[in-house]
């Protein structure tokens, strides 16, 4: 059972091959057996998962099941879940139980999906290796020495290790795509505004976007159809109908033109990753895709722009964690200032503090024009680069990250090296575009993902290309030996 995709599980449940309760028990048993090594879950909700599974089986018996009813999944611990701790990977929220659920969680609950628990992540989604989590690093199921990527590292590792068939993730600068690439799974970051942010703890509000992570593009399509949509509780969600993403999966690729940004294939891209991408390009050519070289001239400015805007928003978003109403509070505060300083000093980890300081500096009087305003101007230039490219081509293809998964501890003392990890993903967030990571092969035993990038709201096209590619390749079917 655990090797089946979401789509196959849906068929199995529908045909009565197994029940949701059996399926849920099987995954819970696997988590119990393997997660001590991987550390992909912060919280496993065994009891409520079994109850939800039984409710799903009852719903199916009553003839009211939807496609996703009874299928287990896990939520990144950034999504608020009513009655279950939502830590955001931080000591600050180690004791926080939200009194409400995120819209994404609610929507998937309504489908009758069964939540197995909350997955590990970089603290407040700040990181590219999952090493900044208060709950310890996640290990890459393909190689225990390697990081799973971040910040949605727990979700990616859990899917790769078959501890869950699917998970939710969030992506602010690559946090769905890069761990998907490192763990050999499929992950989609939707267009900004496609999926509600209500109940998703904010890192950088103008960049954050929730999305599906699973083994295949077809699974992601199924999940995205259930997750997406306008939410009156999120002013930045977009009033636009949600297509059935599965219905477009089988469109032929002939006539499609995909651009290869030359800046994404230059210096800094590991040769073994480039080789894997070249092979993927040939596969797609065989499916009728035409490739064309394009340029995104401002790519090198994506990192400096992102590392002003995201920390600036984060410095403000994280001000609410002050020890007054919820979350960590220091012992015996002497006065108000002491309460603030020690509660925040103790509750936040080093990377979070670093970004709060960067953001506070960038927004300070006298520096605002030089940093924040300039970064916003660059953001518009980057967006124009993409829009100009999409005048020439339908989609873009490139690497997700410069390398395969790196080793634990190899970069976490060098923030700038760590930030460079996201060079190919940040621009997509800054422009609000949809992007996805699709397993494209392996280099030295570690997975390599290719990134597909589309114009706004062209998720269906991305999923279509990825699905057709997955029909003729088997990289996404490989499973790590635990």
């Amino acid at each position, binding site marked *: 059972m655990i090797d089946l995709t979401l789509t196959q599980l849906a068929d199995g449940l529908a045909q009565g091959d197994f029940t949701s309760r059996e399926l849920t028990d099987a995954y819970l048993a696997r988590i119990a057996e393997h997660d001590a090594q991987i550390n992909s879950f912060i919280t496993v909700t065994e009891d409520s998962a079994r109850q939800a599974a039984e409710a799903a089986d009852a719903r199916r018996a009553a003839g009211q099941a939807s496609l996703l009813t009874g299928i287990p999944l896990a939520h990144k611990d950034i*999504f*608020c879940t009513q009655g279950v701790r*939502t830590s*955001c990977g931080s000591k600050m*929220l180690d004791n*926080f139980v*939200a*009194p*409400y659920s*995120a819209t994404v969680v609610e929507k998937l609950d309504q489908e009758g999906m069964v939540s197995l628990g909350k997955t590990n992540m970089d603290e407040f989604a700040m990181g590219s290796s999952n090493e900044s989590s208060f709950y310890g690093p996640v290990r890459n199921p393909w190689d225990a020495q390697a990081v799973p990527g971040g910040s949605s590292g727990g979700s990616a590792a859990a899917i790769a290790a078959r501890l869950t068939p699917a998970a939710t993730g969030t992506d602010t600068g690559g946090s769905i795509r890069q761990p998907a690439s490192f763990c050999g799974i499929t992950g989609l970051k939707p267009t900004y505004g496609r999926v509600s*942010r*209500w*109940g*998703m*703890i*904010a890192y*950088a*509000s*103008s960049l954050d976007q929730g999305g599906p992570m699973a083994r295949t593009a077809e699974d992601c399509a199924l999940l995205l159809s259930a997750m997406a949509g306008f939410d*009156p*509780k*999120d*002013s*930045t969600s977009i009033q636009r109908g949600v297509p059935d993403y599965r219905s477009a999966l089988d469109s032929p690729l002939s006539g499609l033109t995909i651009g290869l940004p030359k800046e994404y294939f230059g210096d800094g891209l590991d040769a073994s990753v480039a080789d894997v991408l070249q092979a993927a390009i040939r596969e797609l050519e065989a499916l009728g895709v035409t490739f064309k070289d394009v340029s995104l001239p401002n790519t090198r400015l994506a990192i400096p722009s992102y590392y002003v805007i995201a920390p*600036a*928003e984060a*410095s*403000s978003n*994280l*001000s*609410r*964690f*002050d020890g*007054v*109403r*919820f*979350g960590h509070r220091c012992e015996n505060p002497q006065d*108000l200032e002491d309460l*603030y300083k020690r509660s925040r000093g103790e509750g936040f980890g080093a990377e979070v503090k670093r970004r709060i300081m960067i953001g*506070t500096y960038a*927004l*300070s*009087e006298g520096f*605002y024009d030089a940093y*924040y305003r300039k970064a916003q101007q660059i953001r518009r230039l980057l967006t124009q680069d993409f829009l100009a490219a999409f005048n020439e081509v339908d989609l873009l293809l490139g690497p997700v990250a410069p390398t395969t998964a790196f080793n634990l501890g190899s970069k976490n003392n060098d923030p700038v090296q760590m930030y460079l990890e996201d060079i190919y993903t940040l621009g997509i967030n800054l422009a609000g575009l949809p992007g996805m990571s699709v397993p494209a092969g392996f280099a030295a035993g570690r997975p390599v993902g290719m990134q597909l990038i589309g114009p706004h709201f062209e998720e269906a096209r991305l999923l279509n290309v990825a699905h057709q590619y997955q029909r003729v390749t088997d990289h996404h079917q490989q499973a790590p030996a635990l």
Partner: protein
Amino acid sequence: MQWEAVIGLEVHVQLATQSKIFSGASTAFGAEPNSQACAVDLGLPGVLPVLNEKAVEMAVKFGLGVKAEIGRRSIFERKNYFYPDLPKGYQTTQMDAPIVGPGVVDIVLEDGAERSIRIHHAHLEEDAGKSLHEDFQGMTGIDLNRAGTPLLEIVSEPDMRSAKEAVAYLKSIHALVTYLGISDGNMAEGSMRCDANVSVRPKGQETLGTRCEIKNINSFRFIERAINHEIERQIELIEDGGRVVQETRLYDADLDETRSMRSKEEANDYRYFPCPDLLPVDLDDAYIDYLRSQMPELPEEKKARFVEELGLSVYDANVLASSRAMAEYFDRTREICGDAKQAANWVMGELTGRLNKEGLEIQQSPVAAEQLGGLIKRIIDNTINGKAAKQVFAALWDGEGHTADDIIEAKGLKQVTDTGAIERVIDEVMANNPAQVEQYRAAEPDKRGKMVGFFVGQVMKASKGTANPQMVNQLLKQKLEG
């Protein structure tokens, strides 16, 4: 040296929306602490703001009321600072692109002189909660019921030159917002709060002196005292060879003094930046025109009508138009009695005097406009005289009868205009006071005028106040002259 004060006001008006500016929680005053604060108001992780359209509508109406340019695109920004009653660590407000641009408010001073005060802009923002320093044994309690209540902050140009002008301006603003129905204007409950920027300069000097901001002025009475106090403090300081330091000062109504709160050096760097959780507010002509068509008659228009059509003095018209309730009361009274001047005298005199004495608002008056109008009608048609009218008013106030006619009847206050009846009383009084009659007749003609008062008093007393005073006067003179 002759000094001139320069004053600008920032008035915070609580808008009379049912729910808060960014959440669905109620804005009603006086509830149990923290019973009207939802997850959004508490700033829980993952919550998002959604703008209350009613607040936008009210702000635009205010803008139209001060003939301002309405911001076609206004933007919410975050003002970042830490304080326990500020749940998110930032206040959502408007800065660079406010909803109401430059406008103008006309004021009338006590001597009837009129002036125009320019509005710099007005912007929408959320209120903070309240810190309660009493009853917590040296600790501070936080009540977040008020957090998120919509405020319109109205910022004037430094156009006022005295505390009296500031009061007149505040009264004009009060009248406008209550006319528009966008605020209850209740200063005791904090629905209107005011900060004053005060500086002084030698009369005739162009450049402005260094200003101080006085915070926490919450009544018409205090604003005059606080500003006068601050003007005196600054003049004394300069005349003693000192210099005014730019700072924020707090007005203490109990001690009637201002004291330093923080200097410019200690001022917060609020790190304003556009709120990424809220979209810009775009308003089109159709929307603004629709709201324009919904505007009630405003104080200015009412005042003009009172002067031009009813022949009232500018001062009277200004007082009567100062609040919508007052103007409506006056209009109703006038319609019933048919005499605008009498109605104005009664509303501004007897009624206002009694209301002030009892500490009541005109809406709470025990004497309805219909009752007062009925009373004045009986004065005009000579049914009662002025003295009796005051008795009738007092009886109406005490609820002794439903109409003036009932009371006139019950108390026998109908004026006696029968010459024979009055003559009989005069004869009686003259018979009882032969010495006074002798004196009168012996006096020089030019002294007699004063002496007749004694007899009038006696006659009125004997007739229990019902005799027509003009007739008493005339008949007395005839009889005394013998």
